[in-house]
C-alpha cells in the first residue's frame, strides 16, 4: 500500500479511558494524602501502586496507538495492530451508510463510535471512541458525495 497524505487521521480518544485515569488519580490521591498526614504506606503498597499506574498507562497508550483510521480522497483506511499490522482500504463506492453512536456521557464529552456499513452487509468498519465524531462523519459524507458526483462511485456497465 502506497504511503500518502491522509485528509483526516483519527485514533481512539483519551476520553474513552476516563475510568482508568480516574483510578490512577484515586491511587495517587490516596498516597499523597497518606504522606501528607504522616501515615506513610509501606514498600509493598508503594510498589503495587507504581506497577498498577505503569500498567494502566501502557495499556491506554497501546490501545490508542495500535489502531487508526484515515480518510483519503477516495477511500477509508483502517489499520489494526502495532507489531502485526492489518491494513484495510475500503473504497467509497463500497460504503452503503454511516451511523454515529453516542451515549449521553459520550455526547457531553464529545466523542463517539462511527459505524461504516458496506454494501456487502457482512463486514462493517467500526471506528470506536473518536473525538468530534460529528465532524468526522460530515467530512466523510462530503467526500463520499463528492466522489459519487464525479462518477467514481458508479461503474458504467
Amino acid at each position: 500500500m502506497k504511503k500518502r497524505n491522509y485528509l483526516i487521521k483519527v485514533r481512539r480518544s483519551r476520553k474513552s479511558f476516563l475510568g482508568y485515569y480516574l483510578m490512577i488519580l484515586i491511587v495517587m490521591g490516596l498516597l499523597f494524602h497518606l504522606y501528607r498526614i504522616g501515615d506513610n504506606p509501606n514498600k509493598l503498597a508503594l510498589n503495587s501502586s507504581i506497577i498498577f499506574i505503569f500498567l494502566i498507562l501502557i495499556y491506554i497508550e497501546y490501545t490508542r496507538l495500535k489502531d487508526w483510521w484515515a480518510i483519503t480522497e477516495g477511500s477509508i483506511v483502517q489499520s489494526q495492530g502495532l507489531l502485526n499490522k492489518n491494513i484495510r482500504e475500503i473504497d467509497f463506492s463500497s460504503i452503503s451508510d454511516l451511523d454515529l453512536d453516542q451515549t449521553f456521557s459520550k455526547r457531553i464529552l464529545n466523542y463517539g463510535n462511527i459505524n461504516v456499513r458496506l454494501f456487502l452487509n457482512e463486514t462493517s468498519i467500526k471506528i470506536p471512541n473518536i473525538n468530534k465524531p460529528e465532524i468526522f462523519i460530515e467530512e466523510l459524507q462530503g467526500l463520499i458525495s463528492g466522489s459519487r458526483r464525479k462518477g467514481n462511485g458508479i461503474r458504467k456497465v
Partner: protein
Amino acid sequence: MELGRYNNEHLHFAHRRKVKREIFFFVFFTFVIGIILLSSFYGESFLTGKVIGKISQEELIDFQALLSVPDLSLEGNYDEVMVTLGMGQDIYIDNKRISLTEFENKIIFFNFNGKINLNKSGVLNLEGKSSEIKINNIPINSRKNRSLKVSIPQNPPYKSFEIKEEVYIKEIDFESSGKLNLDKDTLNLNSERIKIKNYQGSLKLENSRMNLNGKVEMVEIHGNFSKISLSKL
C-alpha cells in the same frame, strides 16, 4: 451469511476480551487500594506480624537471659514501648520538638508501629507512629484521633528500654557475656558467640544488660573449642 456470523462472533469475543480486561484492572485497583489502606492502619508489619503465629508453641523452649547488649533492630507493632531518657534529650512528635528537662524522663509509646534501633553502645533511634504517648505521666494524644508521628532521631543514650511480651526476633547473632536459662539448664557465657533463633517474649535493656524472658526455637553457642546447639527437637 457465514461471513456475517463470523464477524458477529468475532465482535462478541472481542467484547468479552474487553470486559475481562476491565475486570482485571478493576480487581487490581481494588487490591492496590486495599494494600495502601491496610499498610496505613497496620504499618510495615501487617504482613510480617503473622510470622509469630506460624511458629508452633510446642517447638519453643522457655528462655531467660541476662546478656550484654547487641546491636538490635526491631520493626513491628507493639502495645507498649517504654524508654527512659536523660535530661537535655529531644523527642519529636508530629515534627514538633519536645525537649526533656527532667533528670530522668520516662516515655511510654502506646500502640507503637515503626522501627527501633538499639546500639550496643547504649544509643537509641526510634521512628514510627503511636496512638498515645506519655512523657513523665503526662499524656499526649492527637486531637483528630489519629496516630502521632514520633521519632527520636539523634541517637541519644538511653537509661532503659523495655517492651513487654510481644517482641519477635527472627535471628540474632552476637558475642556476649552473661547468663541464660534454657528450660531447666543454666549456661554462663564469657565473651562467646551466641545465636538466638525465633525468640518471642519480653525485652528489657538496662545498665548495659539485655534481659530476655520468653520462648525461643533454638540457641547456638560457639565456644573457643566447641559448639552447643539447643532446641526442642
